[in-house]
């Protein structure tokens, strides 16, 4: 049957109303596009340029990258990033999951527990670093307290030891962020279908078994989401490292973000700083791109079944 001309002509109103969502979305899209891609591309170009004190645009190829990797401090920073990210993400998730499971056991005063574990998120990293710096201080913090109570040989000053300072930063980071992991896991645990749990209990599974075999697998997407959010905190670590140890002792707790800042602004080496920043973005991409593929694959699987 031939379509009549009146059928094929879509009324303007209809077309406009279909276009409205896209129109409304466009400003945000342009802004985000600019913010993400243009800035990243600008940083890429600067990393290949001869910028020193101010951004300049003479092309010098990979010279800045060579300079960067010849720097011992950059290696230390990069190692610290890998170490910190691994420990911080995994341990924050473990602690968060543990707390969520414990609270999920129908304990009394849940809102109190929840507030106690969540409040560190409200505090800025600068304040966290400063206050924990006080606690870690051997002359006036925790070690001093224990020493003055009589145990004079007690030693607890991780931030003054160049081998353990990074772990102090990890611990403080976990203190700050595990509440977030806990909140997400708690939300996930709460949303598990009650019937599945009952079915497992009727089958005689112990508490532990139920968790391991039934509940945790069903909240697998949450693990991934928590990991991704924690990871971006880890990679952007700056305020915490600066306020807790200031890259010390010596240069032992330098982080890429702090080194980028130092290179760009203190040392007037914007080109090398941009190269370091590109390395940070590369590290992020290595994690994010597989995640994006995984999410897309999962979505395709779900829509395939749906």
């Amino acid at each position, binding site marked *: 049957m031939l379509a009549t001309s009146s059928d094929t002509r879509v009324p303007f109103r209809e077309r406009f*109303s279909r276009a*409205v*969502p*896209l129109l*409304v*979305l466009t400003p*945000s899209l342009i*802004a*985000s596009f*600019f*913010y*993400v*891609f243009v800035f990243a591309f*600008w*940083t890429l170009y600067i990393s290949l340029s001869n910028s020193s004190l101010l*951004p300049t645009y003479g092309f010098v190829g990979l010279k800045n990258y060579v300079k960067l990797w010849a720097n011992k401090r950059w290696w230390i920073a990069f190692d610290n990033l890998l170490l910190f990210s691994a420990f911080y993400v995994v341990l924050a998730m473990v602690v968060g999951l543990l707390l969520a499971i*414990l609270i999920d*056991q129908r*304990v009394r005063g849940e*809102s109190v527990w*929840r*507030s*106690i*574990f*969540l*409040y560190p*998120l*409200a*505090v*800025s990293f*600068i*304040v966290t670093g*400063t*206050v924990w710096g*006080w*606690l870690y201080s051997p002359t*006036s*913090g925790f070690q*001093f*307290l224990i020493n*003055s109570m009589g145990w004079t040989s007690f030693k607890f000053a991780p931030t003054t030891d160049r081998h353990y300072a990074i772990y102090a930063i990890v611990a403080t980071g976990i203190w700050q962020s595990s*509440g977030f992991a806990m*909140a*997400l896991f*708690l*939300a996930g645990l*709460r*949303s598990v279908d009650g019937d599945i749990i009952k079915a497992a209990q009727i089958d005689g599974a112990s508490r532990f078994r139920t968790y391991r075999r039934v509940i945790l697998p069903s909240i697998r997407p949450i693990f991934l*989401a928590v990991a991704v959010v924690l990871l*971006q905190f880890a*990679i*952007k670590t*700056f305020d915490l490292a600066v*306020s807790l140890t200031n890259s010390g002792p010596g240069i032992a707790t330098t982080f890429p973000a702090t080194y980028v*800042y130092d290179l760009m602004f203190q040392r007037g080496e914007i080109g090398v*700083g941009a190269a370091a*920043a590109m390395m*940070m*973005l590369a590290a992020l991409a290595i994690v*994010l791109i597989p995640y994006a593929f995984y999410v897309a694959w999962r979505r395709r699987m779900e829509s395939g079944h749906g």
Partner: protein
Amino acid sequence: MADRAMPTHDLEAASAARRHLAAHAVIYAILLLFALVYIIPLLVVILNSFRDVQEISRNGLIAFPRTFRLDAWPDAWSTFCIGGKCEGMQRYFWNSVRMVIPATIISTAIGAINGYIISKWRFPGSETLFTCMLLGVFMPGQIALLPWAFLLGKIGLANSVYGLILVHCIQGISFTTLFCRNYYVSIPDDLIKAARIDGAGFWRIFYKIILPLSPPILIVTVIWQFTGIWNEYLFGVVLNSGSQQPITAALVALSTNGTNVRVYDVMSAAVLIGALPPLLVYFFGGKYFVRGLTQGAIK
């Protein structure tokens, strides 16, 4: 027969009850232990803000207060010298308020609308666009600093609170859109379809259907944005000047005194003043935070 069965049943019930009690005791003990580690920093800061600074130097930072003074608070708020002016933190506090509230409201509103569009008005390529927007979450601040300075300079908003609001809004769009979109996905599409059949347009559906269902996720988003923008240091300090600096600038001034004597009591009071708004937001909004997340903020 029945008599002989009951005592064993009681015994089993009793031992089961005992095991249950023991398990709960363990749970509470572990929770208590963690809670202590979490709450001690806050307690230390609160106590130190009421102690005399000489006493703090003598007895350490973690100790039972032996003195009690209220002076640190008014000192931190209105008389402490920061940057040559001796007016305390109050100006910086209000600067932050002036910046954070509009930025939070605007970025949340945009996030809600964007999330609505991406989840309910799907068009070819919307998912890809969403993923691109999402990448903004991962941008480190140091990279964006100079480009932002350049852009703000070009549009004439350098060194002004409006410029800073713009920056925080755009940087926040990624997160707020993510939260809202994941939440709205769980609103049944049939509701929307029914409304469209009834003739409702884009905005109508938003106001009548989406918005009334949104409070949990809006609260999550507001909490997240408020906290993030309030506690942000780098952009607040560099893209602002003089007396318009936010409260994080005052906090850094107090905590890195270089060669000067530490005034722990004023620092503690200042830290509490600085952390109070986000803490209050978390305190009152905490339960909505979990509820909003339960209803699917992150997928």
